[in-house]
């Protein structure tokens, strides 16, 4: 393939253009990072410092933002008084549990769907994917009743199951794409080598393993960030970080410092996970439609 470098020739117009482009990139960079920076900074401010703002139009007053005595009090408070350690554990167990369940059941189903030919397969696939696309609010009432009648509301198993409602179809759909791309030959070779079907399936699992790993992480991400299910199915015995964060609005006053600290706690682990699975991220977020 030819070089990817594009040959450019210099001209005044192009210099202007480059300057504009750089300006645009800077603005975009600031626009993307600034809220995160403010969140981080505010999480170390006590409430009264957070309220400080320069006068309108007083551009020189921006320094006010950094004029504060950093305090870790919000973080300490979250973990000592507000039980965030427990909520974090709940978040982790629920999202990881659901990810493992989804990917385990999902890879079996995906393998079957990838290998089997039967009438109505397309319809089945469509149904699976549509369960993932359905708006949560639309099905929340009946779901809640089912969960409650099974004694699952407010429990971690319940939350795991709730997250599975969106993680499982996702896992099936994505993993089917993976298995579709695994040639039959390897299984056939295994069969000829004397393997039975189950051993043959195990033989191709390492081929999809990196992807499966990445999608476990993605499922964790979806579960971790979920709010509606967590607040309605989970709250009570299995409160997760987003719900606990939302509850910092109460009582009496919005605890902005704590909310920002909780936001940092909720977001940072996911950012690291995101970096970890960077290669699969776009694939995952587009339901496998776009591959990098």
């Amino acid at each position, binding site marked *: 393939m030819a070089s990817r470098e594009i040959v450019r020739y210099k001209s005044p117009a192009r210099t202007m253009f480059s300057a504009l482009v750089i300006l645009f990139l800077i603005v975009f960079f600031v626009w993307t990072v600034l809220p995160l920076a403010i969140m981080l900074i505010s999480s170390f401010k006590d409430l009264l410092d957070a309220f400080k703002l320069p006068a309108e139009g007083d551009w020189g007053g921006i320094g006010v933002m950094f004029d504060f005595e950093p305090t870790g009090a919000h973080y300490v408070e979250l973990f000592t008084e507000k039980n965030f350690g427990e909520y974090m554990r709940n978040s982790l167990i629920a999202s990881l549990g659901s990810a493992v369940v989804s990917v385990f059941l999902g890879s079996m189903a995906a393998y079957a769907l990838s290998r089997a030919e039967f009438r109505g397969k397309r319809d089945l696939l469509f149904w699976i994917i549509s369960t993932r696309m359905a708006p949560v609010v639309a099905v929340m009432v009946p779901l809640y009743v089912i969960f409650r009648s099974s004694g699952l509301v407010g429990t971690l198993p319940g939350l795991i199951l709730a997250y599975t409602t969106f993680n499982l179809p996702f896992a099936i759909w994505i993993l089917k794409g993976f298995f579709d791309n695994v040639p039959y030959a390897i299984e*056939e070779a295994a069969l*000829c080598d004397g393997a039975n079907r189950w051993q043959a399936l195990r033989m191709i699992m390492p081929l999809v393993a990196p992807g499966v790993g990445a999608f476990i992480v993605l499922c964790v991400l979806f579960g971790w960030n979920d709010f509606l299910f967590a607040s309605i199915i989970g709250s009570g015995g299995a409160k997760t970080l987003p719900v606990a964060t939302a509850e910092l609005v109460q009582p009496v006053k919005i605890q902005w410092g704590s909310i920002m600290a909780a936001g940092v706690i909720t977001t940072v682990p996911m950012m690291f996970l995101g970096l970890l699975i960077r290669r699969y991220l776009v694939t995952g977020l587009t339901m496998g439609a776009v591959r990098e």
Partner: protein
Amino acid sequence: MATVTISDVWKYYGKTVAVKELNIEVRDNEFLCLLGPSGCGKSSTLRMLAGLEFISSGDIYFGDTRVNDIPPKDRDIAMVFENYALYPHKTVFENMANPLKLQKMNKVDIAERVEWAAKMLEITELLQRKPVELSGGQKQRTAIGRAIVREPKVFLFDEPIAHLDAKLRSHMRGELKHLQRRLETTTIYVTHDQLEGMTMADRIAVMHEGVLQQLGTPSEIYNHPVNEFVAGFVGEPPMNFVDCYIERQDDAVALVNDSGQMKLLLSDAQSRALAEKSADGVVRLGIRPDDLFVEAGQGHGLDFTAKIFITEPLGGDMLVEAELGDDRLTIKRKIADMGQPGEACGLAFNIEKLHVFDRETGEAFF
């Protein structure tokens, strides 16, 4: 160490027939080549032998055992795949050890077997590598190694060297042949490359559109193709075909091409053969490029005068394409100066080596 009998086997995919009424008996220790173009049913046949496809009707026997309903793992076969089908996450050693491991052989024996095979294939120093670190030829050897460690009853090869480069391919041909001789294992080898079949096989089964065309030794196939398809498929460069009609002059029989520029008098034996098969009217003449003679210029004393279309030097030899009337013929000869395209040249046929086919059915008269 076993005969393989394919008895009246049919294979359907839905309504499509992939293999039609196939009967082949593979002898013990024989190297049989299934040869044919894409979609001729040779792979389906091999996969039925392996147990990877089910037999629509008919039977397959290994020795005296009917294997139709036996799953692959119990057939005692080893298969080498076109794309090698190595387990990418396992080392060469683990790849080769896998069948033995599945047989629950103990570790010491496994190591011994694998090393034996690796030595035979000269890949001992690669044993700890993963497939990604191997070249095509090394992968191929690994795949073969995986097949031979078990000493199976039957080897099945599915175009094992199709993806190697030309030089390596010719090298591997020799090695495979040698290996098979050494191991003395019944081998069925699928390929679309006639050269592989010709060079390696004890016998070749040529297939076309699901039907076995001809089963015979390479020389039988080459020298006595039973029909136009086999004749055209085997041999490189391929056989020339010229549409002719039969002209009888008293006792003699001549073949005349449609433009009338060419007229070949057949020998008595050939005439008889035509008469026996009651051929009359139109036929198709086949002649291999080796069996034509061509000389440059006018004063050559050969039977016909043709026109040079193009010449292709091949080092010591050369190919000459010449136009005789409306027909274009490829001739192979020692290299020489044949003049420019469009110039005249002399042309002659080795009448003994003529093949004549029914223009309708393609069946060979001789």
